[in-house]
């Protein structure tokens, strides 16, 4: 009986391992959830993103979570006439956005939950100069994206130089994967043609902080969720013990 299960299972399993999707391999986002990093990410966000994108579900005064007071938020992070209790509405008109960029820039409230931190981190670091595009920019992770490289003053301008020289046995497989159209940032060499105000490491950190902020903004209640969760689990554990004892008490008669 058990043999049958094992054999039939084993016979069918190998078929499932076939055909993985050819995708861009994403860099792992080194997000840190400390208040200082999140504040830095918030600053980058309101300075660079909020003119075209909105975050309509996010209220400015929620940023008190990051250790800021309402006055600090109002003074440093609100550039429009908005009040601190207002939501981060987009400055740009949706129709105009579609005209300028081909598609209205999406709202970023839950972008981190939709795309994931790794995708966002890789995306923001793999813009490169492409004269064939209307904006002059293209992107490895999101080919032919309508968004220009907003952070170029920080990162500088880069182009794709060449695929990394490969001196390993897996070379043949990787070249075959390249032919299928798979480009992963780990395999490409970027060259900075015009430096920005940040070194590559500084830029990576700034993007990591921005992505960390986007992750926070995707679910501001996450920290509270964990805290309450520990209490609830503890309480339910105690309750399980109590009810187990109660069950045993009654069921003594039966066994």
């Amino acid at each position: 009986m058990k043999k049958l299960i094992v054999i039939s299972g084993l016979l069918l399993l190998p078929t499932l391992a076939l055909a993985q999707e050819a995708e861009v391999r994403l860099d792992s986002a080194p997000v840190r959830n400390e208040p200082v990093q999140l504040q830095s990410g918030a600053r980058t966000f309101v300075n660079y993103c909020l003119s075209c994108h909105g975050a309509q579900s996010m209220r400015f005064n929620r940023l008190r979570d990051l250790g800021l007071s309402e006055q600090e938020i109002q003074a440093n992070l609100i550039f429009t006439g908005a009040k601190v209790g207002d939501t981060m509405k987009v400055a740009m008109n949706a129709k105009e956005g579609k005209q300028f960029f081909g598609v209205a820039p999406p709202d970023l409230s839950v972008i981190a939950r939709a795309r994931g931190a790794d995708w966002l981190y890789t995306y923001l670091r793999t813009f490169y100069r492409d004269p064939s595009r209307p904006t002059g920019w293209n992107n490895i992770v999101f080919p032919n994206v309508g968004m220009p490289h907003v952070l170029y003053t920080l990162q500088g301008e880069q182009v794709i130089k060449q695929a990394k020289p490969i001196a390993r046995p897996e070379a043949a497989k990787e070249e075959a994967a390249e032919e299928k159209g798979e480009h992963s940032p780990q395999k490409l060499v970027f060259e900075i043609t015009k430096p920005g105000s940040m070194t590559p490491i500084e830029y990576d950190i700034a993007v990591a902080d921005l992505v960390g902020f986007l992750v926070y903004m995707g679910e501001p209640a996450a920290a509270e969720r964990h805290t309450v969760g520990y209490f609830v689990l503890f309480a339910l554990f105690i309750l399980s013990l109590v009810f187990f004892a109660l069950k045993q008490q009654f069921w003594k008669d039966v066994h």
Partner: protein
Amino acid sequence: MSDDKKMNPGRRNLIVLAAATGGAAGLTTAVPFALSMEPSEAAKAAGAPVEADISQLQPGQKMTVAWRGQPVWIVRRTPEMLAELPKLDDQLADPKSLRDPDTFTPPYARNENRSIKPEYLVVVGICTHLGCSPVDEFAVQPEPFDPSWQGGFYCPCHGSTYDLAGRVYRNKPAPDNLKVPKYMFLSDTRIVIGKDEKGEA
């Protein structure tokens, strides 16, 4: 049926313990649900203080500002209007605004004019009877509801009348003077309603 009428104490204790802990857990779980019905952040943001620009307000004029979904009137009173106020005291139900002052009259409005600056009256334009919004009757002339009318407000729903300090007349359905909200002057031309030095309403 069971034949152990006398339950052993161990069993009874466990039942009590389980009922108590289970009940406590149940009540604790109910708390977030009940709290979810409290005003949300959106409602609270909509209830935030509102600024009013009074630079264009002429003497004898009234402007209306929306605060927490209610009309707040700012009336720029003339010297004649102010002079008339003390003479009305014996026709009023509560001329000194002594009734329930914490609700209706903040400390800086506990004076004859019921305001910070005599010239500007700031009141919530909702009748203290059943919630209608009274109409302006600033002209000093005989009215059907009062042959010796000296100017103020008239509530059309049930006939309550208020003077130009928002004080209610005697023998009218409304029990209280018009509420003076928390407010303060940010400058000579800007008033913020819903907030004063002590904080927000």
